[in-house]
């Protein structure tokens, strides 16, 4: 089989499996998997910037929250219906990621990490500051009547699962298409050796800008969908923790692999789910996994798989 056939078979197979699981899973795991698919879309967005372009952002919660609040605030205060609100959330993600990219891409390495961290923190504090509209940490519920997308009630578990699957499939296929496209290949080249790419005549700034806007937009789409599917928007989704999560998922699943974000999110979600049954200090697991990953498996699960068995894995 050629690499393209194998790639299509593997990723298509995963989507078919996810589609089929919907009919067999018990209610609890059914709900979990819907959540995991939305969060995995967020991780897919993060992976484009971190995994493929090699830029480690500590501020992606800003984009996730931009999507979530762009969607929920227009519903809450401007009376938008779900579809335009979703678009408003994605548009907010484009604007915010473009603005942050123009500033943060002037720096590199550790400074880039701190700049993204600081702007995301400023965004989080801004949400708290305008608590009158955003209800701050407490957040607000998006009513069932406001969650009708083209006549489909997204609060129903089955509809929610399909909406999450459509979002995830779109993001996964978009990221697969992107990295097989010359633009994506240039991003990988920038990750490996930015100086050389610049010397070859590529505009590396424009490529990094593009990567950050694509990454931010996917993250915002995930944030907006999360709010719409689960009916809640709160400031905690803008906190540092939600910038660390996608990093953790992508690192665990394998940075710079198309399937990595989903696998990482799936594992981490159930790891935390199981451990929170035992202790309230469930973030301990996240910390231990982060340290162990940096020490022993910087490639992540899929990365190790690619290094050892399936060398063709995108």
């Amino acid at each position, binding site marked *: 089989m050629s690499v393209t056939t194998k790639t299509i078979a593997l990723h298509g197979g995963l989507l078919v499996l996810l589609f089929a699981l919907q009919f067999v899973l018990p209610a609890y795991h059914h709900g979990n998997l819907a959540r995991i698919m939305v969060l995995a879309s967020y991780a897919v967005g993060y992976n484009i910037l971190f995994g493929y372009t090699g830029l480690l952002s500590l501020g992606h919660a800003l984009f996730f929250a931009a999507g979530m609040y762009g969607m929920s605030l227009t519903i809450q205060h401007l009376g938008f219906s779900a579809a335009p609100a979703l678009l408003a959330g994605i548009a907010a993600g484009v604007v915010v990621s473009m603005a942050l990219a123009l500033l943060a891409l002037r*720096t590199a390495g550790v400074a880039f990490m*701190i700049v993204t961290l600081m702007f995301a923190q*400023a965004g989080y504090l801004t949400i708290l500051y305008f608590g009158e509209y955003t209800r701050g940490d407490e957040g607000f519920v998006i009513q069932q009547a406001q969650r009708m997308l083209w006549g489909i009630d997204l609060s129903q578990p089955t509809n929610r699962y399909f909406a999450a699957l459509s979002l995830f499939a779109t993001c996964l296929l978009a990221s697969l298409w992107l990295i097989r496209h010359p633009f994506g290949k240039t991003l990988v080249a920038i990750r490996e050796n930015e100086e050389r790419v610049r010397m070859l005549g590529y505009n590396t700034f424009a490529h990094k800008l593009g990567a950050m806007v694509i990454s931010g937009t996917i993250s915002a789409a995930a944030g907006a969908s999360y709010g719409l599917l689960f009916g809640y928007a709160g400031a905690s989704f803008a906190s540092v923790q939600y910038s660390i999560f996608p*990093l953790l998922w992508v*690192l665990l699943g394998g940075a710079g692999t198309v399937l990595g974000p989903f696998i990482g999110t799936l594992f981490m979600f159930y790891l935390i789910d199981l451990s929170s049954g035992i202790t309230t200090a469930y973030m301990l697991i996240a910390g231990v996994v*982060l340290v162990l990953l*940096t020490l022993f498996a910087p490639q992540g699960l899929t990365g190790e798989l690619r290094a050892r068995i399936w060398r063709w894995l995108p």
Partner: protein
Amino acid sequence: MDLGPYLILASLEGAVTAAVLALTAVGLSLVFGVMRVVNIAHGEFFMLGAVIAWWIAHSMGGHPAIGFAVALVVAPLIVGVIAVLADMTILKRVNYDPERTIVATIGLLYIIQQLTLMTYGPEARPVEAPFNTRLAIPWFEHGENGWQMIWPWGLGTTSYKLAVIGAAAGVLLGVWILMTRTRAGLVMRATQADRDMALAFGIPVEKVYALVFGLGAALAALAAVLIVPIQQAHYLMGADPLLLSFIVVIIGGLGSLPGTVLAAVLIGLSDGIISVFFSPTLAKILATLLVGLVLVFRPQGLFGTRHS
């Protein structure tokens, strides 16, 4: 009260913040300067210092001053040892790669914080100050009989707060002497200037790194022991000092000790004064934006000079 007494009060509170902040930030700056890595878990070392101080003061009994004095020595030592162990088991193994170190210290942050939550619990607990005399401050006012001295209600400080400022100044002086006048400081500065050359001259760079990491953490813990009679020990108390230290270290110029102290005084004082006039959230928003913008447009810091 008039504006004047308010300002005095705000600057006194600000001076205490600045003193503690300077100690914490110098620890972070030292680690960044010598090792070229950013330690995200720095705030958790601060928190550990406060929690261990509570634990010592709680289990010692007797006069509060005894427990506090023991905590002042033992808490930074314990935290320093923990940091040295973390350096040897984690940071050394990722080769002090800047990005992997950040990820690893984020992990360390959660490990320390959550282990504290599991053992110490979610309560905030106070430590009694060793001495705490109230000192009122007079104010001059132009009244019917010309200028007269009054004692406005609420304008004052405590002997302990003044002692914190003094102690912090003393420790900072000590760090400065250590760095500029001793052999250990010379070795650290040599490692900072050129790691490979230092290694070639037989300086045990890995030991220096471990000690610097321990020293940085111990300074944060010491700052926390000093502040814990004023604030309370809580497992989430590390976030604010971390953010403020970042602000200070970046504005002061990464890795420059005098710049760091100057920035700490500036930030500490203005934090106290700004918080009187604006909401603390707004002050924090402005501060985080300032750090981001300084890094983007003036990466050498406001007081630093550009290296070629």
